[in-house]
C-alpha cells in the first residue's frame, strides 16, 4: 500500500515536471487570413492608444482582427530573436532597419515586401524613407516615422551666455561652447555611459567627412580604409579637446533621471545636446513639472569645412514595421492601411513625431518638430544611424571605441582599428 502510494506520487511528480518542461514548446502556427498579431514598443499613453485605434478601425474595414502586443522597447530585439527561433514570430513587428534587419533577413524570417507595398505608399513616402528599411535593394518594411539627429538647446541658457544665433558651422559651435563655459554653464550634455550618445558625435563628423556613397555602402563593405573615417575621428578628438561635455560625462546616463544628459538639459544644467528626434519627448518627461521644456530649441549638426559629405545631409533613424516570413497577405494589406495619410497624421499627433508620409506632414504643429522637418525636407540625403547601419557587432565595437577615445585612452586610429577588428570577427 505504502509502496504503491510512493509510486503514484512519483508518477504524479514526473508528469507535472514533464508538463512544465514541455509546456513552452509550441509549434509554428499556421498563417491565418483573418487575424494578425502585432508587436509595437508603446507601453503607455497616446502611442498605445493609437495602435488600439488602428486595430479597431482595420477590423471594421476588413474584418481582420489585429492583436496588439506592447513590448518594452529594450526587450524588442531579444524577444523577436527568441520568437524567430521558436517559429513563433508575430505577423507584424517593429523594425528600425540596418544591420539588425539584415540579420533577420539572413535568417529568412522577414517577408520581402518590395512588390507587395502599394504604389500609393511609395509615392507618398518617397524613396528616402524606404531606403532605411531596405537590404540589398529589397524592401522589408513600411516606415512610419523619421527621427533626424540634431542639436537640442536651451534658448534661456544661450541668451544668458550671449549666443545670438544658432551655430551653423563648427567654428560657431566652438565659439558657443566657450561662451557657455564663460557663463559657468556646462556647454554640451553627453550620456556616454550608454556609449551610443557619444558615438553620435563621431557619426556626425563622419557624415560630414565621408561622401554619401562611402556612408551608404559601409553596411555592406565594412571597409574603413577611406581616410574620411580617420578624419572624423580627428575632428572628434579636437572637439573633445575643447572640453565641451558636462562634468563626469563618462558615467552619465542618456535618458534616465534628472542626472542624465537629457535631464541636464531639462533642468537647465547644460546648454545643448546632440540627439535624435525623440529627444523633445524625453526632455519633457524629465523637467521638474513633467511638461515640455518651454525654451527648447533645435538646429542641425553644424557643417564642417572641407568634408566630402553634403553639409545639409542628416543622420537619423526610421521607425517602421515589417512582416514575418510566414504571415498571411493580410499583413502587407495592414501595412498599406497604416501608411494612409489619415493614419500617418494621427501617428504624428500621438507620437509627436515626423511622419514618414510627406502627405501627412501638415499634421505636425509643434514648432520644434516643424523646424526639424524643414531641415529633413531640405537635406541632400539622410543616413541611418551608423551603429544601426553597421549591425550590432561592428556598431557596438565602434561605440565602445569612441567612448575609449573620449576617455583619453584611444585616438582617431583606434576607433578605425576597433571597427575593422570587429568586422573581421563578425
Amino acid at each position, binding site marked *: 500500500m505504502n509502496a504503491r502510494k510512493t509510486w503514484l506520487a512519483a508518477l504524479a511528480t514526473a508528469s507535472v515536471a514533464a508538463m512544465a518542461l514541455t509546456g513552452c514548446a509550441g509549434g509554428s502556427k499556421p498563417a491565418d487570413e483573418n487575424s494578425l498579431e502585432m508587436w509595437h514598443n508603446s507601453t503607455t499613453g497616446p502611442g498605445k492608444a493609437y495602435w488600439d485605434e488602428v486595430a479597431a478601425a482595420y477590423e471594421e474595414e476588413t474584418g481582420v482582427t489585429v492583436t496588439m502586443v506592447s513590448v518594452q522597447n529594450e526587450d524588442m530585439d531579444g524577444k523577436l530573436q527568441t520568437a524567430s527561433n521558436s517559429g513563433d514570430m508575430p505577423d507584424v513587428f517593429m523594425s528600425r532597419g540596418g544591420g539588425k534587419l539584415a*540579420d533577420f533577413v539572413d535568417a529568412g524570417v522577414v517577408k520581402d515586401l518590395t512588390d507587395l507595398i502599394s504604389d500609393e505608399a511609395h509615392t507618398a513616402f518617397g524613396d528616402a524613407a524606404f531606403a532605411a528599411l531596405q537590404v540589398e535593394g529589397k524592401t522589408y518594411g513600411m516606415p512610419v516615422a523619421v527621427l533626424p539627429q540634431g542639436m537640442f538647446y536651451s534658448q534661456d541658457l544661450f541668451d544668458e551666455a550671449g549666443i545670438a544665433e544658432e551655430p551653423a558651422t563648427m567654428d560657431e559651435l566652438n565659439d558657443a561652447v566657450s561662451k557657455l563655459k564663460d557663463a559657468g554653464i556646462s556647454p554640451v550634455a553627453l550620456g556616454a*555611459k550608454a556609449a551610443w550618445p557619444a558615438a553620435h558625435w563621431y557619426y556626425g563628423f563622419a557624415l560630414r567627412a565621408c561622401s554619401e556613397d562611402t556612408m551608404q555602402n559601409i553596411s555592406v563593405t565594412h571597409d574603413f580604409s577611406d581616410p574620411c573615417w580617420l578624419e572624423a575621428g580627428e575632428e572628434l578628438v579636437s572637439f573633445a579637446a575643447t572640453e565641451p561635455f558636462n562634468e563626469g560625462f*563618462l558615467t552619465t546616463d542618456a535618458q534616465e533621471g534628472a542626472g542624465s544628459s537629457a535631464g541636464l538639459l531639462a533642468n537647465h544644467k547644460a546648454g545643448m545636446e546632440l540627439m535624435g528626434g525623440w529627444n523633445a519627448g524625453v526632455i519633457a518627461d524629465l523637467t521638474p513639472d513633467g511638461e515640455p521644456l518651454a525654451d527648447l530649441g533645435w538646429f542641425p549638426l553644424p557643417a564642417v569645412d572641407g568634408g566630402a559629405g553634403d553639409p545639409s545631409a542628416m543622420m537619423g533613424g526610421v521607425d517602421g514595421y515589417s512582416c514575418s516570413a510566414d504571415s498571411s497577405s493580410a499583413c502587407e494589406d495592414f501595412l498599406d492601411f497604416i501608411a494612409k495619410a489619415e493614419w500617418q497624421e494621427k501617428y504624428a499627433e500621438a507620437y509627436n513625431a515626423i511622419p514618414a508620409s510627406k502627405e501627412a506632414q501638415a499634421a505636425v504643429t509643434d514648432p520644434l518638430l516643424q523646424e526639424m522637418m524643414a531641415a529633413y525636407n531640405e537635406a541632400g540625403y539622410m543616413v541611418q544611424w551608423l551603429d544601426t547601419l553597421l549591425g550590432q557587432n561592428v556598431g557596438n565595437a565602434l561605440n565602445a571605441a569612441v567612448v575609449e577615445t573620449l576617455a583619453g*585612452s584611444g585616438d582617431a586610429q583606434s576607433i578605425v582599428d576597433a571597427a575593422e577588428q570587429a568586422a573581421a570577427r563578425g
Partner: protein
Amino acid sequence: MTETATLLAPAGAARRAPARGDWRKRGEIALLAGPAIVVFVVFVILPVVMAAFYGFFKWKGFGFPDDFIGLENYISIFKDPTFRSAVGHNFFIVIASLVLQGPLAILFALLMNQKMRGRSLIRVLIFVPYVISEVVVGTGWSLMLQDVGALNSFLGKIGLDALAQSWIADPKIAMGTLMFIISWKYIGFAVILMLAGLQSIPEELYEAASIDGASFWQTQWRITLPLLGPTIRIWAFLSIIGSLQLFDLVNIIWGQYVAATAGTSTMATYMYLNGHLAGNYGFGNAVAVVLFLISLVVALVYQRFALNRDTAGALTGDGGRKKR
C-alpha cells in the same frame, strides 16, 4: 547503498524481503532526488554542454548554428587584450575581497560575539546591505558617486573640495571604489557566517584557557581562529566564486562600455558586451565556457588543497566513512 540494505535486512530473512526494501528505497530516492536531478540536468548540465557546442560556431543567434569555425572564437578571446585585462580585474577582486573582507569580518564577529548594548541593532545594520538587491545598491552608489553627485558636493560643503574625485570614471580610483562597494555590500554575509562559526565553539575551551591564564588575544589566536577554520574556508570559497562571476554591480554602476575604460570590467561584463550586445552569440558562448573553466579550475584546486579537510566524507564518499 547495498551495504545499507544488507544492514537493514535481518540475517537469515527471506530473500524477498531485502529485494522489496531495495525497490522501495530506490523508489523513494527516485521520488525525492528525481525532480532535482531533472531540473539540474536540464537547466545546468545541458546549457553547459550547449554553450560548449555553440562556442565552436560563428553564430548570430538565429536558428541552428551552421558556420563551424573550430577554435577560432577561443583564439580571438585569448588574443584580445581587453579580455586579458578583464581576467586580471577578476583575480584582483578575488584577492582583494579575501584580504579586505576576511579580517574585517572576523573582527566584527568577535566584537558582536561579546555581550553589549545594541548588539542586535549593529548586527542588523551590518547585514542590511547584503539583503538589498544589487540593482538598488548599484544605482544608489552610482548616483552618489557621480562627479556632480552627493559625495563630491558633501565634500565641497564641508570645505574638503580637494578630496573630491571622479570616483567612478577615473581609472586610478575606480577599482578602489568597486572594492569599497563590494566590501560594504558583502561583509554582512561574511560576518553572519563567522558569527555562526563562533557560536559553535564550545564555551569550555575558553573557560579552560582563562583558568590557564591566557590573555584575550592569546585565546582568540590559539582557540577561536583555529576552530573557526572551516567557516573561514567555506566563506573564502564562496567569496572567490562570487568574485570570479561578478557582473551586476559593475554592469549597473559603470555600464558595459565604460567598465573596460575605467578598469573594472570582469569576464562576465566582457561576455555580455561582446556576446549579447554585439549579437555574436557563438563568441559569447565561447567566453562563457572560458569563464566556466577558469571558475572550475579555481574551485577544484581550492577543494583539493583547502577544503578537503572540511568536506571529507561529504564529497569523497568512502574517505569519510573509513575515518569514523
